[in-house]
């Protein structure tokens, strides 16, 4: 069973008197454990598709399925719950909570769930993630005391802390220098490999596309290519 499926999904925006067709009807499936790149130039609709998969935007037409469940009729409360339990986010601008420390930012999503107790098991897992992203010595620092790469590492750990089946990353290396970007990509690939977490990127970074084991190319709101390179 595919973990994510889009069926003829369309997204139109009203822009003044004109309607912008951001996504003109796309269909594809994503399997668990994929390291998938949704690639395309600016305005191709990749961020819109990522938002629909991340349940923070809804298709104007068509359907989105998460773990086989249609999300079309879900209410805001249910969408939020599903998003929390299933999906982790890594943003282009990191989007850390500025007043929280590294550790607090990482544990923050756990406090939003129905069961929000910080059990020993959870604390151990947070320690593990902090070690994995290499921020053991930066646990008590706030975001403004961290470099861009360090912030994105915090964001990765935060995205993983709820053990989501899907992690969405919107241009995760766009605000990082080349070396830091490479390190972040390697880290995500490692997590993907070790934890079998599905990673979905929107990007036009060739390095990410090269690392991906499933590539969906978009142009003008339509899928132009959907393939899994052999031997990745």
């Amino acid at each position: 069973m595919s973990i994510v499926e889009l069926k003829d999904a369309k997204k139109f925006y009203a822009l003044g008197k004109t309607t912008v067709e951001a996504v003109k009807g796309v269909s594809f499936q994503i399997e668990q454990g994929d390291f998938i790149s949704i690639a395309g130039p600016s305005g191709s609709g990749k961020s819109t598709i990522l938002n629909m998969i991340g349940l923070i935007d809804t298709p104007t037409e068509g359907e989105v399925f998460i773990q086989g469940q249609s999300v079309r009729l879900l209410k805001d409360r249910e969408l939020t719950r599903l998003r929390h339990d299933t999906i982790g986010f890594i943003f282009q601008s990191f989007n850390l909570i500025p007043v929280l420390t590294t550790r607090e930012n990482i544990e923050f999503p756990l406090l939003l769930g129905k069961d929000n107790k910080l059990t020993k098991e959870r604390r151990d897992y947070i320690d593990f993630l902090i070690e994995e992203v290499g921020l053991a010595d930066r646990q008590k620092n706030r975001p403004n005391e961290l470099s861009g790469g360090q912030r994105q590492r915090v964001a990765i750990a935060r995205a993983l802390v709820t053990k989501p089946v899907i992690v969405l990353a919107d241009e995760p290396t766009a605000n990082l220098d080349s070396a830091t970007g490479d390190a972040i990509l390697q880290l995500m690939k490692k997590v993907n490999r070790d934890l079998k977490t599905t990673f979905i990127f929107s990007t036009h970074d060739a390095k990410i596309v090269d690392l991906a084991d499933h590539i969906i190319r978009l142009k003008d709101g339509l899928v132009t290519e959907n393939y899994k390179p052999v031997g990745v």
Partner: protein
Amino acid sequence: MGTILKIAVRNLTQHKVKTLIVGALITVGITLTFIGNSLFESATQGVKKSFSENFTGEVMIQAKSDKKFSLFGFDEVAFGGNDDPTPVIQKYDQVLKVVRALPQLSSFTTQVAGFGFINLDPNGQAFSLLFGIEPESYFNTFHSVRILEGRMLKNGEIGIMMSRKRLNQIAKDNKVTIKLGDEVLLNAFSSRGPKIRSVPLVGIYEYLVPTQALEVVSFVDVQTLRALDAMTVGTKDQVSVDAATQSVLDASADDFFGAQTVTKGKSAANVDLNNILGDKSVRNALQTIDSGAWHNILVRLKAGSDATATIGALNASFSAQQLPVKAVGWKAAAGTTAALTDVAQIIFNIVIIILAVVAVIIIINTLVISVMERTSEIGTMRALGAQKPFIRRLFVAETLLLAGFFGLVGIVLGSLGVAGINLVGIKIDNDFLQILFGSANLKPHLSVNQIGLALVYTLFIGMVSWIYPVSIALKVSPLKAISTE
């Protein structure tokens, strides 16, 4: 909740300038409200104490009437418009029995209220409020004056006692010095025409409690004031007259000088002028001063007695016995003088409420800007799985912490201010302000009431301020996490 408080506190400390601007507004508002209301509360207590202990007692009993009458006879607000004579207590002896039966009774006295003019020919005249009293019971009940010259009036003695301040004022305004032992000529215009009485000045006093409103009051023997007020027999009790007398009483002035009254054919020499009015016994009876007529019974209660409950019990007894009197509290007895403080406090609080509305608008504006600046943060929280109630709690916590902390600072500063003013005191020279605050040296006290009221104001500001900003925060879509920055 711990996370929410943590985020709220850190957000407030991180955005110091915004927090301090809003906080300063709240602190200044609460401090001013606290000090202002403490002053007014102390003023009210002061006015209550000075009036109930020195002039009105805790309870005043007066005749039932559709119009308002205070200790001074008339309601000051209606002065000049309410020219009805002050009603006299009917069935006085029965009323007194009810008063004497009060278990919480400490003492009581009786009083007649009136006003007149002190004739100072050729230098005009001076207005004077007059309290007709039985000196012994009055000054045993109210230790309100200290004799500076002369002595207290004695029971049954004809005379007047005036305050030093009043005499000085008359000397200043009318260039007439009234000295101890001088005859004071009192003019009054009662319902039965002008009355004049001459009484000796037997005592000059000062009030122990500075009560500017009462400086214009002079104490006279009650019989003199009854005469000036035309409180003759019949004002207290109904008098039966026969039909012929009644027709005379009902006749108009024209009836007396009509054509039928002209007597023809009789020489003036044949008329017995001494008996022209015939039998004058009824007229004489009606003009006899009623020695039992009183306007007010002023009651002091034992310490710790509940005045409100006593008034209720008294009125129930009066009603059950069909006595046409009512018991009222010190404030009604004091009339407009005491109400001035209440009115001033209401005006003060209206001003404070207007300022609070302005402050709340500024706070709302600042919080809205704060929400706008944090749409990405809110959107991120929503994207990470924060439900709307979490966002609401976050902003409510911030606003309540802000209002609560700075409100408490305001209460502490207000308390220090009140304590400081209490140590130093505020000297009041202005007569009107002295009446308003019931004292010439205002010393406010800290009170639980004022702390409670300030907390209510603080909570109100906190609760009202978050409603609109939070409604905006709740509209922030998780999409903002991506589309902003």
